[in-house]
């Protein structure tokens, strides 16, 4: 009959005491498991927000500082800044506006052009910025490959609404049209305006400009995306949901757009007419950590010409981090208090139980059992019970923590939001997180409160906040739970075993 069998006999033959020990360890390890789960969930959520939304720094125009020509955001500038050690990844996109032959726009809640013209947004990463930010989700097909980015392949991703409306699918082709006109022959009627200026209003004749060339650019659809509806609070405080402005956006690679534009410009130059092409370039830099924002901006402002400035969303990120840090702090305190309580209470309980078992330990000593064997037997008894209790608590603690901490975090976030609103801000506090490059460039029609729509709301954070059981969490719960029980059992056993058998038995 080895020590393990003796330990198991002890558990089974003393069910009352085993049950008390089990219940106590279960309760305490639930608290520990819950606290660990909450802490890990918060860390995971913060990482998820960082991962998904990132801490974004964009390049924006400072119109007050622009007196002459509007400065351009060039790919070279973006590439240089993107090499900073603080940057996790970066992206820039060239956006242009072209008509697609035979393709109708989707009538969105607030926007309908009706002329079959679409925003074409380019990218340089295999993961689209708007996919990463959660604004769009690939529904069918794929995004572009590295090879397609490098070669400038004419590939396209379109929204499911536009695809459905126009009976388009992955593999279909879309032809973009651009007509280069010569306006030089048109004579405008001139009205004398107040002051010294003559303002051209209507052409006299010819009525139509001369067509130099109509370009056709054929793109192949490789993916179809769905766009997340936007929610915002209107002036009356009602939450309003609208279609995404990205529904009429086509995504391709930067080089494909540039190839089209270069061809048009070349032709315009040959014909000696202005091309009238104004492309927008937006750049976004995702930093490794919100704390790097200031360092990054001071390091790279030298690369921006006058009129361009960095804009970041770090401050708004703090609005999320603060309540999360509060809950994380509470979870940490609860965990260590629970660990302390576990060590103390289990120690006292085991000491109490060992008073009964003290005699038994004396018997084993009198029979010549090794102290190590006695320790092993008692530890087997306690740890087998603890193992079952901790295993159960991994799930129950997780379940409890999930419900309780979610409420706690939601309250904290709401409170933080209320504080910021009370503090003079009239917009939702999580200001800029999630605004995609295509939305931030300002060429899309903007709803009244567009700024609000791109922000992370309490609901978004709560959606991301999931108390999950990952391997790291489970291992940590076992480590802390079983470790606490082990220490609290060893101490009273060693205290008893230091005695001579006679002191125990006679």
């Amino acid at each position: 009959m080895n020590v393990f069998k003796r330990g198991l006999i002890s558990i089974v033959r003393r069910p009352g005491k085993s049950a008390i020990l089990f219940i106590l360890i279960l309760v305490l390890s639930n608290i520990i498991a819950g606290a660990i789960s909450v802490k890990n969930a918060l860390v995971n959520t913060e990482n998820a927000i960082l991962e998904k939304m990132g801490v974004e720094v964009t390049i924006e125009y400072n119109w007050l500082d622009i007196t002459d020509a509007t400065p351009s955001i060039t790919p070279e500038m973006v590439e240089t800044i993107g090499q900073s050690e603080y940057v996790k990844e970066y992206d820039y996109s060239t956006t242009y506006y072209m008509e697609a032959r035979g393709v109708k726009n989707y009538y969105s809640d607030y926007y309908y052009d009706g002329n079959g013209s679409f925003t074409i947004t380019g990218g340089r990463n295999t993961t689209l910025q708007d996919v990463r930010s959660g604004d769009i989700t690939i529904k069918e097909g794929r995004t572009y490959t590295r090879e397609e980015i490098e070669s400038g392949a004419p590939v396209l991703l379109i929204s499911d609404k536009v695809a459905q409306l126009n009976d388009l699918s992955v593999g279909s082709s879309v032809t973009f049209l651009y007509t280069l006109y010569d306006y030089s022959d048109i004579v405008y009627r001139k009205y004398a305006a107040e002051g010294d200026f003559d303002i051209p209003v209507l052409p006299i004749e010819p009525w139509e400009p001369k067509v130099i060339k109509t370009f056709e650019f054929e793109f192949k659809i490789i993916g179809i995306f769905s766009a997340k509806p936007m929610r915002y609070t209107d002036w009356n405080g009602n939450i309003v949901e609208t279609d995404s402005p990205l529904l009429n956006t086509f995504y391709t690679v930067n080089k494909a757009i540039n190839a089209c534009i270069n061809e048009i410009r070349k032709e315009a130059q040959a014909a000696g007419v202005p091309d009238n092409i104004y492309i927008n370039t937006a750049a976004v830099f995702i930093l490794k950590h919100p704390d790097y924002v200031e360092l990054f901006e001071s390091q790279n402002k030298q690369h921006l010409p006058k009129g361009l400035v960095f804009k970041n969303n770090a401050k708004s990120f703090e609005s999320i981090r603060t309540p999360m840090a509060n809950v994380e702090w509470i979870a940490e305190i609860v965990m260590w208090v629970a660990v302390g309580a576990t060590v103390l209470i289990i120690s006292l309980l085991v000491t109490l139980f060992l008073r009964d078992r003290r005699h038994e330990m004396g018997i084993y000593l009198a029979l010549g059992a090794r102290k190590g064997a006695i320790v092993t037997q008692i530890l087997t008894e306690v740890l087998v019970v603890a193992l079952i209790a901790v295993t159960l608590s991994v799930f129950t603690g997780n379940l409890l923590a999930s419900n309780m901490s979610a409420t706690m975090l939601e309250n904290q976030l709401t409170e933080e939001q209320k504080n910021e609103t009370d503090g003079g801000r009239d917009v939702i506090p999580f200001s800029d997180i999630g605004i995609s490059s295509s939305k931030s460039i300002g060429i899309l029609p903007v709803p009244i409160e567009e700024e609000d729509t791109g922000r992370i709301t309490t609901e978004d954070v709560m959606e991301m906040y999931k108390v999950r059981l990952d391997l790291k969490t489970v291992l940590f719960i076992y480590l802390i739970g079983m470790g606490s029980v082990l220490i609290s059992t060893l101490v009273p056993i060693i205290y008893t075993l230091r005695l001579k058998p006679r002191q125990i038995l006679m």
Partner: protein
Amino acid sequence: MPNILSVRNLNYYYQDGDTRRFILRDVSYDFERGRFYVILGESGSGKTTFLSMIAALDTPKSGEILFEGVDIRRIGYENYRRNKAGMVFQSYNLIPYMTAVENVLVAMSITQNKLPADKKETAYNLLQYVGIDKAKANRTVNKLSGGEQQRVAIARAVATDVDLILADEPTGNLDEETEAGIVEIFKSLAHDYNKCVIVVTHSSEIAAQADEVIRLKKGVFLNDGQFSG
């Protein structure tokens, strides 16, 4: 016959400030196999302390205890208890939630002495020898009477195949009839199985049946070897 156990100048005392209160003073004696010894003494005479020393449950302040000529400190107290001596206590000291046979098996699993392969059968046989049948052997010990528990304790002591059986007031909690049965077992172990049985008691009835009686008074052996009532 060679001595199985010898004690030489054994001393045990409690330090009380600057003075020493002696429990055992300069005790020496030799014990042989095949004999049933009784150490007789009044309460506080030091007989239980003496038994604790030779059972290695406690350590003397000075002096030697030799088992087959080897100091038990060299054998190792734990090793000595495990493989050389079996102990029977007044209060039985059985593990209460285990059955009689499991109590015997525990001792058999601890010793390093060579035992028959079928330990469980051996344990049943030993229990049968001390008067515990198989049905009782399978009961948890707290469902047995005091006399039966003491028989289980004796079976446990001899189960490790040791030659030295030590008993501290083994019949102290038992009636006369049961006491007689227990004493018979001790005598049988000494005489039929060539064990050295040392029993500490204040019972003159048990002493009357011993091969040798050692009187202990105020920590000193008055060993005439004869019991005179």
